[in-house]
């Protein structure tokens, strides 16, 4: 059950997308998100869709994994779509029955919004699937480094991010273990009344918190033992290097973005 969570999961590989500089990948992802939100007409979305498919194909990660990242959010997407359908009131009225009113604008927004969010999740999954969390935080640190001049704790932020990301799988595994252990003692986690389930949640949360604090403590000690004292003067094992391919990828993305803007301008 918990093992199905794919958010933040990394699929090691050696595809074109894997080899790109993570800094470029982050910038490209931001441009991609802007591209999706430039206009709401069919051609605009097709541009976004083609771009997403291109990125997915080049990433070498099976399409099934992208579908898996969208699947858990589908119920929310459907609820949003239904709400938009009934609540948005613009354009020609297509159907009117008592208090229910469906307009052209409503259909547009609910459909476009849904496709857009699906593309958004899949597109940003390309980033997380092809970039290891550590390189990702390295890249964030480098991209934010100009803020250091404003006394913004960039290194500390990146360190916290990488620690948090590093411990997601550990905590998931731990939760799984504790759940199994309590199930072995007859805890009803998936069944039973609300009260018994709430009580049984305590049987999972308390041990989980206890162990998270213990881990944090141990990690802090381990870091101090290795003389960690912030980012000052710290060198890196992995140097980030950009190549011609990175500029090409960035260029292609910008072209797509401009195309989306042009299309949005023409058709509106």
């Amino acid at each position, binding site marked *: 059950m918990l093992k199905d969570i794919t958010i933040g999961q990394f*699929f090691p590989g050696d595809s074109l997308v894997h080899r790109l500089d993570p800094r470029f990948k982050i910038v490209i992802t931001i441009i991609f998100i802007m591209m999706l939100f430039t206009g709401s007409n069919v051609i605009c979305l097709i541009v976004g869709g083609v771009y997403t498919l291109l990125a997915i194909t080049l990433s070498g990660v*099976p399409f099934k994994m992208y579908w898996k990242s969208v699947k858990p959010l589908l119920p929310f997407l459907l609820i949003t779509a239904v709400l938009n359908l009934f609540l948005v009131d613009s354009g020609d009225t297509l159907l009117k029955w008592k208090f229910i009113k469906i307009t052209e604008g409503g259909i547009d927004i609910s459909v476009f919004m849904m496709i857009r969010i699906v593309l958004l999740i899949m597109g940003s999954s390309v980033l997380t699937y092809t970039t290891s969390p550590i390189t990702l935080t390295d890249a964030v640190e480098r991209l934010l480094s100009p803020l250091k001049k404003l006394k913004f704790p960039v290194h500390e932020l990146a360190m916290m991010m990488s620690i948090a990301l590093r411990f997601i799988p550990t905590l998931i595994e731990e939760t799984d273990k*504790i759940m*199994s252990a309590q199930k*072995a003692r007859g805890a009803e986690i998936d069944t039973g009344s609300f009260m018994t389930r709430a009580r049984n949640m305590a049987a999972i949360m308390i041990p989980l918190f206890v162990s998270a604090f213990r881990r944090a403590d141990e990690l802090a000690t381990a870091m101090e033992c290795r003389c960690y004292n912030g980012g000052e003067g710290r060198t890196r094992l992995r140097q980030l290097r950009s190549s011609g391919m990175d500029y090409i990828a960035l260029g292609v993305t910008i072209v797509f973005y401009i195309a989306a803007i042009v299309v949005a301008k023409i058709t509106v």
Partner: protein
Amino acid sequence: MAIIETQELTYTYSQGSPFEKTAVDHVNLKIDEGIIVGVMGHTGSGKSTLIQHFNGLLQPTSGKVLIDGVDIWADKSKIRDVRFQVGLVFQYPEYQIFEETVYKDIAYGPRNMGLDEAEIKRRVMETAADLGLKEELLERSPFELSGGQKRRVAIAGVMAMEPKVLILDEPTAGLDPAGRDKIISHIKQYHQRTKNTILIVSHSMEDIAGFADKILVMNKAKLFCYDDTEKVFARAQEIAQIGLDVPQVTKVFMELKDKGLDFGKEVYTVGYARDLLLRKLAEKGGAADC
């Protein structure tokens, strides 16, 4: 009749994904009631996966698990009852402790079974005594206890459900030798009182050699062997080859055999080795009183 039986039990992790891995491969097994079984195997040999099938925490990809002759997955809604019949103590079980007092934590399992207070109290008291937890400890917070004590509280929590089969996954992992001996002797005490079947997982033979009736060895997801302790130790060489630790005293006697001193039997406890040596010396009329 066998208390635990598996028929062609197979389990595959993450089926259909790139991480697919078969952890248990067509295992056929019959474990008799009332005995102590040592379960051995290298890390990743599938022993932990195997035991999680016995109480229905994992559902076989294919094959069957029978407890008391009944297929536990025949009726999915009854799977919780299986967990009361087969108690499973995980590795480092102290991390599952969560209640505010030791008493309440041991009582958690029995309470989930829906027993009345008097029965719960009897069980908590008895298992606490089996595990050498003094009465004044029962009202303390489990988080204040020492590591070894916490471990015993967690084991008591499962024992108190009085399962027909008790499975312990490396109950002595991470303890010092004194703590290890203590846990083992408490488990023996529990076995003497209840006569219930016990399975103990361990990667070292040294731990279980002295008191297991039978030994089950897993290797690379397959059942390597399941037989009487002596017969398994007779194959000590093979077992050493699959990367498992043979007791030191057995190693010494294997070397002696190579050097021409054959005792005709496999030796796996120090006490037995001493008896054998003394007898040999007596035969030769040497210093039998050493």
